[in-house]
């Protein structure tokens, strides 16, 4: 272990180059991973935010953002199925928003009943000291510049109807490129011109004594003209649609995979080159009678020290980069497990690369140690 530290301190320039290589790789992997994870989470954010077990959608709906209206009878029939203890509605459609200054802007209007879940952005559920009308409008902080309201509350228009924006929320910035507005289902349906009983998404809560899958099967038999999906299945479907079937999603997925592979290659190559620099010395150790374990321990220690230092530097670099990126890309997300996995994989690659490079030293070539 002392030899490993001494090797590092003796050649600081090489150590720095190795650490920078590893830190770049960790930075790349965490950043690209954050883009992909954030995109996937954003693709199913509204579905995941609901507490209900089953979603009913029009046939063929691929994602929350592209729903179609359902007749009011669907909700009534679903409510009558054994096991369904509560129903709710949600909708999302594009609308024309007229700002207080008279300019127009296309927005994504999301409406939901107040019983969908505490995490769903519905006016009545947003915790505040002020009393709030269920028909008030919320927007995400990341859309502030596009919403352009100087102060709250502000009177605006949505699809020609007067509306009242009165609160800013966080965590629901979208990737559609247009701002999102949130309101009650009743209010959204009014702005969007739905019939009073129409729905876009019917959500169902299943009683604890019932199996969600059994209730789902029963609903499918009774409502063959619509799609009946568990919350998890609809969230998965939505994520797969966005990441596989759209160009933007495919680009993000490809970039993440490439970033991951490039990161691992950079780590491996950097550590391999670093170990090969000292290969003559490892061969000398072996000639002097050092066991394979002794040599491998020195090599592994040095690689893991470089790997750990590079990982820490990479993580320190990624924090401000992510904060800045979040101001431009509100949906980017770095879950706690992502850096851990990337650092773990980097250290694993450090170990594998160093062991691979030192194999030649472990089988001593006499020509190597006797060469002048």
């Amino acid at each position, binding site marked *: 272990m002392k030899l490993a530290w001494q090797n590092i*301190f003796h050649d600081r320039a090489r150590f720095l180059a190795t650490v920078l290589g590893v830190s770049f790789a960790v930075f790349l992997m965490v950043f690209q991973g954050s883009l992909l994870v954030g995109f996937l989470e954003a693709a199913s954010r509204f579905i995941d935010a609901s507490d209900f077990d089953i979603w009913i959608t029009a046939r063929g709906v691929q994602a929350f953002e592209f729903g179609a209206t359902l007749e009011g009878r669907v909700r009534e029939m679903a409510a009558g199925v054994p096991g369904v203890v509560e129903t709710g509605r949600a909708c999302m459609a594009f609308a024309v928003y007229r700002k207080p200054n008279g300019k127009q802007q296309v927005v994504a209007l999301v409406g939901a009943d107040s019983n969908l879940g505490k995490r769903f952005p519905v006016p009545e559920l947003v915790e505040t000291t002020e009393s709030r009308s269920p028909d008030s409008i919320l927007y995400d902080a990341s859309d502030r510049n596009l919403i352009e309201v100087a102060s709250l509350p502000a009177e605006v228009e949505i699809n020609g109807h007067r509306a009242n924006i009165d609160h800013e929320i966080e965590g629901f910035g979208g990737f559609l490129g247009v701002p999102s507005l949130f309101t009650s289902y009743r209010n959204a349906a009014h702005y969007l011109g739905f019939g009073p009983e129409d729905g876009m998404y019917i959500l169902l809560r299943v009683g604890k004594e019932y199996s969600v899958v059994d209730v789902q099967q029963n609903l499918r038999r009774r409502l063959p003209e619509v799609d009946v999906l568990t919350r998890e299945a609809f969230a998965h479907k939505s994520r797969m649609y966005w990441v596989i079937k759209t160009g933007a999603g495919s680009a993000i997925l490809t970039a993440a995979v490439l970033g991951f592979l490039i990161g691992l290659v950079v780590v491996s190559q950097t550590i391999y080159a670093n170990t090969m620099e000292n290969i003559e010395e490892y061969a000398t*150790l072996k000639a*002097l009678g*050092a*066991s*394979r374990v002794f040599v491998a321990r020195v090599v592994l220690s040095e690689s893991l020290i470089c790997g750990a230092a590079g990982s820490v530097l990479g993580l320190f670099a990624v924090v401000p980069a992510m904060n800045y990126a979040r101001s431009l890309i509100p949906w980017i997300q770095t879950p706690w497990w992502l850096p851990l996995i990337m650092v773990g994989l980097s250290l694993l690659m450090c170990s594998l690369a160093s062991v691979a490079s030192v194999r030649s030293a472990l089988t001593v070539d006499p020509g190597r140690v006797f060469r002048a």
Partner: protein
Amino acid sequence: MPNQFLAVEDARISFGQGDARVRALRGVSVAFERGTLSLVMGPSGSGKTTLLSLLGCLLSPDEGTVFVDGVAVNELSASEKTVLRRQKISFVFQAFRLLHSLSAIDNVALGLEIRDGKRADKMVMARELLLQFGLGGKLNHEPDDLSPGEKQRVAIARALAGNPPILLADEPTASLDAEAGRNICQILRSQVDQNGKTVVVVSHDPRWKEFADRTITLSDGQMKPQAQGQHA
């Protein structure tokens, strides 16, 4: 073979294949007596270093037997050879082969660490060895800060750390000036006379003849008739 302390018996070894095949040793038999300094001479490519590699358990012969401390090493596994090398054999190289990141004392202590990792007095022993070779003022100097002669003395101290009975030296004076070279010759000779070490030196340097008990000459992978060393 009467003396099997350190010996090769009818050793043959080749490298490469087809037209590129080189027969490095062609039936060499030689025994080195305990407590002697033997000089192996011969032109480049005569098989001197290959012989040293066989004696140091770094190579195995294609045919023939190698004995170290009475053990036929051909039968040993790679890890058993490593253990034997650790306990019985040490090397001195032409290029010193000191670890560049370690100080002189740490290099010697590393030799002790390899031979006896549990030993608590490694630094004390390393210091004593370096003092013995007149390097008391250079204990914490790194190899890059030492002269070639000093480097070779550190390398010899490392080789002697742990007290192995056999010392194999490959051109130990080739990189040194006349005075430093003579100093190294005297040090190795004294290890034979005072500590009973068995030293085999491979060298082109004729100065060694003065210090050797006998001289063995290799030519084209075969031994020439032996000559007594001047020291004897």
